[in-house]
């Protein structure tokens, strides 16, 4: 039951959605961006509690200030992303929310005082192709989790940067034995044009990379290939390579 003056963001999908589908690490960036999508740069607090009922995860927000208009704007974004005027920061945050829902195959319903005022259904939204860059490249990081009904591999690219990668069941099984190791994968993904942040990534193959002490790695190269570089002056070699032509 939503109390007057509170806002509810109800994440649903076909079949049951449980807290296991949305752990704290997943919810952190979602909440941060949801907060920015509504409050933007204002200092107004916008607090959340998570509630699980009716096979869906509900995020209940409350605020000491009046954010009803902004909440309605988020609902309006769900109905027509291009039709609502938002600051760049809020728009980027809305796009993140949209992409997050797409990644977990879910829709979000927005409630105000128990009344549904709109929904965000990623599959119905036109993709803003101007702000996302498709790239095909390798990705390295610590493998923290792999599996699920629709398998995902969670790779910690940097400390503050956990990427939920789509992966086939076959590759998920292969990757699972590398849990808590640094891994290298090859795939295709999308980056935000402005920030370079990876929005989504699909693993297509696993690289042979194994984390190695760099001193040992160079010692191996020296022992096996050192003679091939023996007659080369490294500085002159690079100078010639980069200035010829």
């Amino acid at each position: 039951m939503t109390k007057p003056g509170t806002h509810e963001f109800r994440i649903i999908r076909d079949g049951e959605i449980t807290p296991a589908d949305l752990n704290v690490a997943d919810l952190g960036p979602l909440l941060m961006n949801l907060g920015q999508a509504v409050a933007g740069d204002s200092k107004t607090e916008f607090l959340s509690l998570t509630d699980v009922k009716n096979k869906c995860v509900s995020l209940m927000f409350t605020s000491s200030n009046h954010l009803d208009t902004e909440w309605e704007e988020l609902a309006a974004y769900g109905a027509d992303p291009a039709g609502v005027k938002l600051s760049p920061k809020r728009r980027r945050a809305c796009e993140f929310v949209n992409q997050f829902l797409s990644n977990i195959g879910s829709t979000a319903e927005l409630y105000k005082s128990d009344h549904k005022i709109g929904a965000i259904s990623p599959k119905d939204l036109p993709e803003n192709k101007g702000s996302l860059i498709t790239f095909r490249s390798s990705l390295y990081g610590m493998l923290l989790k792999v599996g699920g009904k629709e398998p995902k591999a969670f790779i910690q690219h940097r400390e503050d940067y956990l990427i939920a990668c789509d992966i086939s069941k076959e590759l998920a099984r292969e990757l699972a034995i590398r849990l808590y190791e640094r891994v290298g994968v090859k795939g295709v993904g999308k980056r935000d044009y402005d920030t370079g942040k990876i929005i989504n990534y699909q693993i297509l193959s696993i690289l042979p990379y194994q984390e190695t002490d760099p001193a040992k790695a160079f010692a191996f190269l020296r022992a096996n290939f050192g003679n091939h570089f023996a007659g080369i002056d490294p500085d002159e070699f690079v100078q010639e390579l980069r200035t010829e032509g």
Partner: protein
Amino acid sequence: MARTIKVALDTQICIWAVREVLVGGSVDNSEQTISKKEKALALVDCLAREKIEIVIPAVVLAELLVPLDDATSRAFMTAMDSRFEILEFDAYCAVIYGKNYGQGKRDDAKIKTMKDFGITRREMINDHLIVATCVTNKVDCIFSDDQKLRSFCDGLIRARELPDIPMQQRVDGPWEIDRSASAHLKELILGDSQDFL
């Protein structure tokens, strides 16, 4: 979780760390050769000791393959691929390349630097490719002994020359990296200082 520091090595530093110090079949004892090789090995050792990640941009890998014949190249690739993070030049690197190249054309200070070095923009293509790859992958610092690459990095990413890592000799033992070197190395990579103090 402590923040992982990530550095890229330029081609000449990789070669210094890999090559045998042999010229024309005899040991090359020239001071510069020994010094550069020792510096490169000390840098790699110090980075390894501090668990600082070493990454290799694909353009650097390409340059390393130039002197190798096909069979050796294949074996070298396999060795690199399984031991190092190889940073590819992808579509987003192209975006960064375009931005940097465009800004460079309008940046008077960079134009002056290029004139001072007597180099054309075309001659800096590999430098641009390496820098764009490192910027995209949030590399903290590039170690390079190519002065024009370092000058071009200004304002885009930190670039440092092969540092003089302080060494100390154990009593009746071998030379080893000074214990104070670790903190200084991190300062060099993440701070404003250009020198190893």
